[in-house]
């Protein structure tokens, strides 16, 4: 890590009003964020939301059409990639096929004029770090997918960059290996203390590995928060729906205060917590309620749900077995035509409800998020 005294308050990376305009498309709009030294940030968003574009601007492959990017407090808009201290692991890895693993890892050291005598030892040290000892003389086509990932990580880290960028390098791996590599990333990142920006559309990965998450959609940052905040207090319906499985109901805002708000959905009144940042939530305006699938309880008899704030009757339409949990799809006429989705985690009773069965569901008002269309 670059240990020259960076004042604690200077963010390792920050973006100020950054935008990227391709000929007819705004791929990134007015992005603002800060990332503290040594932390792990994940940019999360659906395909085409501008994640790679934002990352390429930070790496220096693209010049923002507007705004500034700072690395360690220094504006880098006009600094070429090879003059930035940024290691990047690419979506398709971009390893050099005509070189061995060791040569790949040595490449940045040679290019950045490290002391030639120290290069071999350092290459070995980093191959050990990613647990590739013994494979240093293999070429890329002689390594497995996971081993190639490790070479790419070692290559991006060996020159001790100020910043590590990961552009979905795990997307192509199977789930087991991916989860293993996620933890591996986290271990190495902690060990070296390198500031990291990771891009993914795997929300689980984002929640597991990050200190900070930015959710993007359509080129816009939707929310910038810690994993727990992102999960518990989503800023808008998009975030609520993107992280976890969420049920959405549309209605009209009837009352709003710091303690809670009320929304008319059909003939019902739902109570919940107002999440929209806009204070000017005009009563009577369109509102959207969100409640997570895992925060709805389900039971055969209503008395099992006695402690809940609000209960309904519904009919089971579908049951999907997902291993550690069951996903129910219910039709609840009072809540509209959309099926209500519920996760059932209690594996002790295995009380599966059958399709067609009438059941009771309910939730706590604090678990209902209310968003007002701005």
């Amino acid at each position, binding site marked *: 890590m670059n240990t020259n005294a960076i004042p604690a308050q200077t963010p390792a990376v920050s973006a100020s009003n950054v935008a990227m305009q391709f000929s007819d498309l705004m791929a990134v709009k007015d992005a603002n964020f800060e990332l503290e030294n040594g932390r792990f940030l994940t940019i999360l968003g659906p395909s085409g939301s501008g994640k790679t574009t934002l990352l390429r601007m930070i790496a220096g492959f693209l010049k923002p059409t507007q705004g500034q990017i700072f690395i360690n407090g220094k504006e880098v808009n006009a600094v070429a990639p090879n003059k930035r201290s940024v290691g990047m692991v690419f979506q398709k890895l*971009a390893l*050099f096929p005509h070189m061995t693993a060791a040569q790949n890892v040595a490449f*940045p050291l040679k290019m950045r004029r490290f002391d030639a005598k120290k290069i071999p030892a350092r290459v070995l040290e980093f191959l050990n770090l990613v647990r590739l000892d013994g494979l240093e003389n293999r070429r890329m086509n002689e390594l497995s997918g996971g081993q190639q990932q490790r070479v790419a990580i070692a290559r991006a880290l060996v020159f001790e960059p100020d910043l590590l960028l990961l552009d979905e390098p795990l997307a192509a791996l199977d789930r087991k290996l991916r989860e293993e590599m996620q933890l591996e990333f986290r271990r190495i990142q902690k060990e070296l203390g390198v500031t990291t920006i990771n891009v993914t559309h795997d929300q689980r990965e984002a929640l597991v590995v990050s200190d900070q998450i930015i959710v993007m959609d359509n080129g816009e940052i939707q929310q910038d928060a810690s994993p727990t905040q992102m999960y518990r207090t989503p800023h808008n319906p998009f975030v609520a729906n993107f992280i976890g499985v969420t049920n959405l109901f549309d209605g009209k805002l009837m009352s709003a205060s710091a303690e809670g708000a009320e929304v008319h959905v059909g003939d019902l009144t739902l109570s919940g917590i107002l999440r929209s940042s806009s204070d000017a939530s005009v009563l009577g305006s369109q509102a959207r309620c969100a409640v997570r699938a895992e925060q709805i309880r389900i039971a055969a008899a209503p008395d099992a749900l006695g402690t809940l704030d609000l209960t309904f009757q519904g009919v089971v339409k579908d049951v999907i077995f997902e291993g550690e949990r069951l996903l129910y799809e219910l039709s609840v006429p009072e809540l509209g035509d959309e099926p209500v989705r519920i996760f059932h985690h209690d594996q002790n009773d295995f009380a599966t409800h059958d399709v067609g069965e009438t059941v009771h569901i309910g939730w706590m008002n604090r678990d209902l998020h209310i968003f007002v269309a701005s």
Partner: protein
Amino acid sequence: MQRSPSSYPIIWRVMDVLETTFAAVWPKGGGKFTPYLMLTPAIVLVGTLVVGLLYIGDSSLRVLDRSTFLFSDYWTLDNYIRALSEPFIFTVVWRSLLGAVIVTIVTLMLAFPYAYIMVRTPSSFVRKFLLIALFLPFFIGQVVRAYGWLIILGNQGIVNDVLGLVGVEPLRLLFNYPAVLFGLVQYMLPFGVLMLAPALTAIPEEIEAASGSLGASWVKTMTHIVLPMAKPGLIGAGLVVLTLSLTDFAMPAILGGGTQDFIANAIYDQFFRTSDQGFGSTLALLLIALGSILVGIIFAVFGAGTLALDGSRK
């Protein structure tokens, strides 16, 4: 849903008939010999060439009696001794070899940036322009192109006219070695670019970006990453340009004006001017040997694998 056969498109019905006929003529699809049978046309073609070569080999061993204009009825190595000892032949061979090597190097040096820009440019207009500029000469053909150079570079040509305007005496731009090499490079450039372009397309842009972010300047990325990865393409292009230049006839004939003969011109003279078929055959075999040795050396140095001909490599 069942449909009446007549409602199928006509081309399907034609294919059906062909297939039925084929199956009747050739039951079970011919079994394991079918792939080899498909090779027959190629084998027949190559076989004819071999027969031709045997004839040439035979003639090369017979000397021409200049008083009777008959060929000896016995075999002798006289033609070979003559080919190896005659200074004129040595000059021609040396001129062809040196020319082919120079043309190959210059062509690759020019074709590489051309192909690189054509493949990498973000502007589709530039790409199309470069592609058209590349194919246009193909449509014109070698002889017409060489003739074009006569018009441009001749004593009364455009270049000398322009030079005359600024008071320069007419220069002899034609019928010399550089003119032939110049014409050859111009002729070979499209082949070089066309052979290189796929090799460069195969290098992902991300690889170059990676090289940059790892600290390599643009020049270092070219020399350490792009050139080594384009090696199979460079060798393939080099082989094509080298063999085509070595055996070229038209450029030395037209732009050299008889003073800059390559081996092919010397062979032509023996066959059609002096009618010494024996010595012509000897020179032809010499040319084949020379080309084979060159290709052999390139394969030995770089390995056939670099051309991606080695099946075990991805």
